């Protein structure tokens, strides 16, 4: 974690206030992304990964969403305090996002070319012809014939739409790319191509990335460091080597145990028991305690804080706190 800081998230809290209750989608988050670094954000569905990403771009839908506190410091400035006009200059330009669901992320009544061109013309001083050329180049880059820029989203397959979304996010050479499960809609070969593309960006353009996924295999392939999220909390945060060698948090350990690996036989596969808690009514104390194999009575009472167990390895578990589990 030595790279120059690009993004720093401090004490970020994002809640959704709905009629059924308040969802603490992101609760006291602290993260850092250095220049050229890739941070993996891993967690089950509903953990708050997309909310984190939207928070960074200051795009939380309000209402019901509300950023209660925290800072998102990008290149030394707090994005959450920026004026609307200033943050628009950053969105799609310095920070861009690949959205999770390519089926709904594209506007159905505009051609994909128009949609890519839009972001190019917003942020680059180019003529229309240049913008079209750039749009076609971007499509080619993600493996779609440039001539198809005049087609509408419904004329593309799901995987191609995903690649259009990627092309759109890359069109202005972002400094920080947030990729929200960019490969879930793709088959394995295309998935590999997309990951290669991202790695190339990272190597050639020194692009920083936040890779949101629930696939620890992808993390192993592209990430430098990883934050494991559970119910709005970052429960473990460290570099990739630490995480794979010595996972500390019981939830992380559970995640690793639930991955099938070729050299272990099937019945040793242990999915984490229990279900994600009701987001509007999280358990007291550590939100993971009802599912945790090591939980004690103390875990239901005391909310854990992040502990730096070894340099650069943060774990939010009472086991590592002064006093331990009892």
């Amino acid at each position: 974690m030595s790279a120059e800081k690009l993004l720093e998230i401090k004490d970020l809290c994002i809640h959704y206030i709905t009629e059924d209750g308040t969802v603490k989608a992101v609760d006291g988050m602290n993260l850092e992304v250095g220049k050229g670094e890739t941070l993996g954000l891993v967690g089950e569905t509903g953990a708050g990964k997309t909310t984190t990403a939207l928070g960074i771009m200051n795009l939380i839908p309000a209402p019901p969403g509300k950023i209660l506190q925290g800072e998102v410091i990008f290149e030394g400035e707090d994005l959450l305090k920026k004026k609307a006009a200033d943050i628009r200059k950053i969105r799609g330009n310095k920070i861009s996002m690949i959205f999770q669901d390519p089926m709904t992320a594209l506007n159905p009544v505009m051609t994909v070319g128009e949609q890519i061109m839009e972001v190019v013309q917003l942020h680059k001083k180019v003529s229309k012809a240049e913008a079209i050329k750039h749009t076609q180049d971007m499509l080619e880059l993600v493996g779609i014939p440039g001539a198809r820029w005049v087609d509408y989203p419904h004329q593309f397959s799901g995987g191609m739409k995903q690649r259009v979304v990627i092309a759109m996010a890359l069109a202005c050479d972002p400094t920080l790319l947030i990729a929200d499960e960019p490969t879930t809609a793709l088959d394995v070969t295309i998935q590999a191509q997309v990951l290669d593309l991202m790695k190339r960006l990272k190597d050639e353009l020194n692009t920083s990335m936040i890779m949101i996924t629930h696939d620890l295999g992808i993390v192993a392939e592209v990430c430098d460091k990883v934050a494991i999220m559970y119910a709005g909390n970052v429960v473990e945060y460290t570099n990739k080597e630490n995480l794979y060698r010595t996972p500390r948090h019981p939830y992380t350990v559970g995640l690793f145990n639930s991955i099938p690996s070729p050299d272990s036989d099937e019945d040793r596969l242990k999915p984490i028991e229990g279900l994600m808690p009701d987001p509007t009514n999280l358990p007291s104390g550590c939100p993971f305690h009802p599912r945790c194999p090591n939980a004690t009575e103390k875990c239901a009472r005391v909310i854990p804080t992040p502990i730096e167990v070894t340099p650069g390895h943060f774990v939010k578990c009472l086991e590592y706190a002064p006093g331990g589990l009892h």
Partner: protein
Amino acid sequence: MHKYILKRLLALIPVMLGVSLIIFTMMYFTPGDPAAMMLGESAPPEQREALREELGLNDPFWIQYGNWLRGIVLEGDIGTSYTTRRDVADEIMDRFPATLQLAVSGVVVAVVLGVPIGIISATRQYSIFDNVSMFVALLGVSMPNFWMAMLLILLFAVNLQWLPSSGLNHGFRSLILPAITLGTGAAAIIARMTRSSMLEVIRQDYIRTARAKGQVESKVTNVHALKNALIPIITVIGLQFGGLLGGAVLTETVFSIPGVGRLMVESIGQRNFPVVQGGVLFIAITFSLVNLLVDILYAFVDPRIKSQYK
């Protein structure tokens, strides 16, 4: 696309047959004797009987209908007005320009008011603007047209004397009050539809994508969202326009405008069967054509629909 339009036009034929049969039946069973209306109650019965014979009113139902249909198909003749002895087609075409002017100006007022109000209401849901304009829209929908017309006449024609109160002889100025009368009611319906359609669309993921690109809010709303919200909006505009083309009886009456609506009401009163039948057929055709136009517009708004038109 051409094939689609042709198919739709051909599909009009059975519809028109159905419409004509229904209206013919209704007129056949309507009490009242056209001959008596034309000659007056005091005319001797023999004279009336002779006229009935001449007009073919004594023939059985199917013969009457068959004759009428044959006239249309073979000679393009919709019939002759009992009262003026003129071609029904001419009678209608005399009245149609006034109705067309009213309909177009009414719809223009409705769209210019309704669409922006709906958009602003949707982007500021539950704001004061939203609440007030939706309340006014509810009033607009429920307020009778003739009452609105009379209020307008009292204020602008009688008291302020800015605008003429009747007829169409003062060009553009004489259209203003009738257009407002017709337009406000339709504007209310359009505003409500625009609002609900926009509310649906601005929740969609692609709107978030547009914002994530750094697009300004006005373009997000007026380009990305509006274009997706347009289908139901065009539909109600089309329905309003189609309805107005059939004549706006009350408005035409209050403002003494000789339009298709008044022609129809007068003809029904006089048991002037050919004019009523021709008029209904004409109204049905214009309504269907407006509908077809709306469906064609869909294709320009939404490429997914366009690819279905074969």
